[in-house]
């Protein structure tokens, strides 16, 4: 499969930022079911700055670009999301420091590094009903395509979005064990995790942004 260029990464981030801003209220409402209703606001406060500073961002490499994103987020996002998303982007940046294009294999390694960073930062593991339960299946799905030269980027993205979307319903009846939701114990059962919904929505929106028809829409 042809390599992923800085331009591709830029477009992905731009699409992710759009999703975060468009869904500011919606994501906060999801967080009010069992959490404290600030997830959307927190996320948006970071990606709003990403959009504002868009033209000045360092584009010398994919890593340099992602590091800037990481810094903007840790600088501007409070709550759990700042450290979690900031750490994720930082770890991904570290593996692409001097690259202007990456292979699917490298993308998978970057995702894995991000996942591990988030786990160290917040102590969450798979099954705690956090965005990790969307990121991990996405990473696994991508792994399936690694090394297959015939892999169609659109298909990989579509399938990644699909597993993230599935995670919403799959985890809905789990008990949240991290973040504010976790304080409500059993109360979190039945309401989808805002972070998982956000990841799924971002991937589905990215599909559309690059002209790929997603398998299904995020609820």
């Amino acid at each position: 499969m042809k390599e992923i260029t800085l331009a591709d990464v830029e477009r992905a981030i731009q699409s992710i930022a759009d999703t975060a801003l468009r869904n500011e209220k919606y994501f906060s409402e999801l967080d009010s079911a069992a959490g404290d209703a600030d997830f959307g606001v927190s996320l948006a406060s970071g990606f709003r700055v990403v959009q504002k500073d868009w033209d000045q961002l360092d584009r010398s490499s994919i890593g340099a670009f992602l590091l800037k994103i990481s810094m903007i987020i840790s600088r501007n996002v409070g709550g759990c999301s700042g450290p979690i998303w900031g750490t994720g982007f930082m770890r991904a940046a570290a593996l692409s420091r001097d690259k202007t294009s990456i292979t699917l294999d490298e993308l998978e390694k970057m995702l894995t590094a991000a996942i591990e960073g988030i786990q160290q930062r917040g102590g969450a593991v798979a099954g705690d009903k956090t965005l990790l339960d969307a990121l991990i299946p996405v990473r696994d799905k991508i792994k399936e395509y690694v090394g297959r030269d015939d892999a169609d980027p659109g298909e990989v993205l579509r399938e990644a979005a699909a597993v993230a979307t599935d995670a919403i319903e799959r985890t809905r009846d789990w008990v949240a064990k991290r973040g504010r939701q976790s304080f409500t114990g059993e109360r979190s059962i039945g309401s989808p995790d805002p972070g998982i919904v956000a990841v799924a929505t971002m991937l589905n929106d990215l599909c559309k942004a690059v002209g790929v028809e997603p398998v299904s829409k995020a609820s």
Partner: protein
Amino acid sequence: MKKFVNDPANFVPEMLEGVALANPELLRYKPEYNIIYRADRPRDDKVSIVQGSGSGHEPAHIMAVGPGMLDAASPGNVFSAPPMEFCYECIKLMNSPKGVLVLINNYQGDRMNWDMAVEMAQAEGINVKSFVIDDDVAVQDSTHTVGRRGVAGNFFVIKACGAAAEKGASLDDLLKLAAKVNSQVRTMGIALTSCTPPAKGTPIFEIGPDEMEVGVGIHGEPGRRRDKLKSADAIVDELFDAVYNDLPFKSGDRVAVMINGLGGTPISELYILYRRAAQRCKEKGLTIVRNYVGEYCTSLEMAGASLTLLRLDNELEELLAAPAEIAVRVF
């Protein structure tokens, strides 16, 4: 949304500006990082004490900055832990050779942001340490959670450490003191209504006209259970028993009692609650050395209250009685 607010996005900065304008001698304001700090701090001969959690809990924590209390506070948005960089800049600003003590309320967001900031500051050679407060008995420590929440008991940790720091206590002394206070203070709260974060514009949870949320969190997190509204005495009895039995306190203990309003409850009702709490203390053989009736740690305009008991000894009694001066005089 029935609030005095301009652009909701400016709720926190405009509040901070107001606090700074109202205390020109006492306080300074760094808008870039939401930092309210003492005009005369840091000082080389005193440990600096800082805190920063979500906003919406006023007077905690920004209105607790002043002599004998906090040296600086850097709040985040309403109900959202401050970004790591705010925390980091707050530590740097209050850097003192005697050290910097960060008092963290036990929420994952607060902990992650402050932990990152403390690591960064230490990496730069700043002598900073943190302590985590978790006095809320409503949420039991279990695999479900990152542990108990830090709520109104936080005030006593600030007051005690603030007074000790003024007397020249070392950073390690203060860590021990904070641990001691935290180990002897217990709180539980109850909500009668929900509250509305300005940026959200709608109530954070729904609650029926005849319902109350027992063990509510200060961010509107649901508590132990939803129940039918009870009489003031019955409510105090439930909070008192939960708090009393958790430590547990015992007959003969000298205590400080706090009835903390959650924001929307008028002080008249808080004294009705205090009345019952004082009766219960007497029954149980607790001697009330100091009492605190008012707002210390709120949830915006939520109607509700929390009850805090702190076991005292001579050291703590002295520290609580020590003079202090903050924007809202609540000690």
